[in-house]
């Protein structure tokens, strides 16, 4: 009974994981511009890979491979966003053309392409006075600063 249940969970995990990986691939092929393609590869790809890792962790039923599989999930969750963030930023900096369906671009004109830094919109910029008074955070309890 328990074994059947484990098998069922495994089937669901493997099918869902490979399904999401396939969807990520189709998304990279179908979506109109590179920034939207990054959405497909970063999210669906991460989830697909993680589900397959979980399937390995449960399916082998041993401790060592399970720990390694969980470490794999952690590495996926830590590294994928950084990679896709860098690619997206490079896309923007290089001025790769974007699909005309784009409705709004708050970043337009605020990027110094030579120095590769961007400015905040004027209404959100942190004023010198508010930075001085806003320096204190909500206290986490007496002596919380010790940590």
């Amino acid at each position: 009974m328990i074994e059947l249940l484990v098998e069922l969970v495994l089937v669901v995990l493997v099918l869902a994981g490979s399904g999401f990986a396939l969807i990520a691939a189709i998304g990279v092929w179908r979506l109109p511009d590179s920034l939207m393609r990054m959405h497909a590869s970063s999210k669906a790809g991460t989830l697909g890979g993680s589900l397959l890792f979980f399937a390995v962790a449960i399916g082998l039923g041993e401790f060592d491979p399970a720990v390694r599989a969980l470490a794999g999930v952690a590495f996926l969750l830590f590294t994928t966003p950084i990679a896709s963030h860098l690619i997206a930023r490079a896309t923007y900096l290089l001025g790769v053309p974007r699909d005309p369906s784009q409705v709004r671009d708050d970043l337009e004109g605020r990027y110094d392409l030579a120095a590769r830094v961007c400015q905040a919109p004027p209404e959100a910029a942190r004023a010198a006075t508010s930075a001085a008074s806003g320096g204190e955070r909500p206290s986490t309890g007496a002596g919380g600063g010790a940590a």
Partner: protein
Amino acid sequence: MRRPAGMFAINLMLMLAWCGSFGSFGPWTLLTGFVAGFAVLYLTRRVWGDPEPQYFRKTFAFLSFFGFYANALLQSSILIARQVLSPRITARPGVIAVPLEAERDLEIAALANLITLTPGTLSLDVSEDRSTLYVHAMFFDDPEVVLDDIKNNFERRLLEFLR
């Protein structure tokens, strides 16, 4: 009031004591030992100088954040899957400026990375004065909803756990 790191060390020692008394250091004994140690520390929390020390608050905040995050990753993948498999691509992408409440570099970096794995958003860059995060959103039907989700769900929960 003890620092969270100190409480964690005590918890680890309790775990080792548990394993020693069972005479086994297998994965299950280690796990149950840690949970039991945590429970003992929680029940005796008044002894440690503060009725609600940081250690427990942060552990619970971390667990609740983890569940919330796993759910968000699943939701975002389903959203993308629906769009990718639909006959016509109807997404209306855009770049939105999100004013940041997070101040420390660690907080901003964590938030930016989390946003990349959440429904329809991808972080692009942080402004030079660290007041604004530029986010590429894929479904821009209502900018207020996108903004509200990032501010009230993600940033609030993350800061609860980090601060």
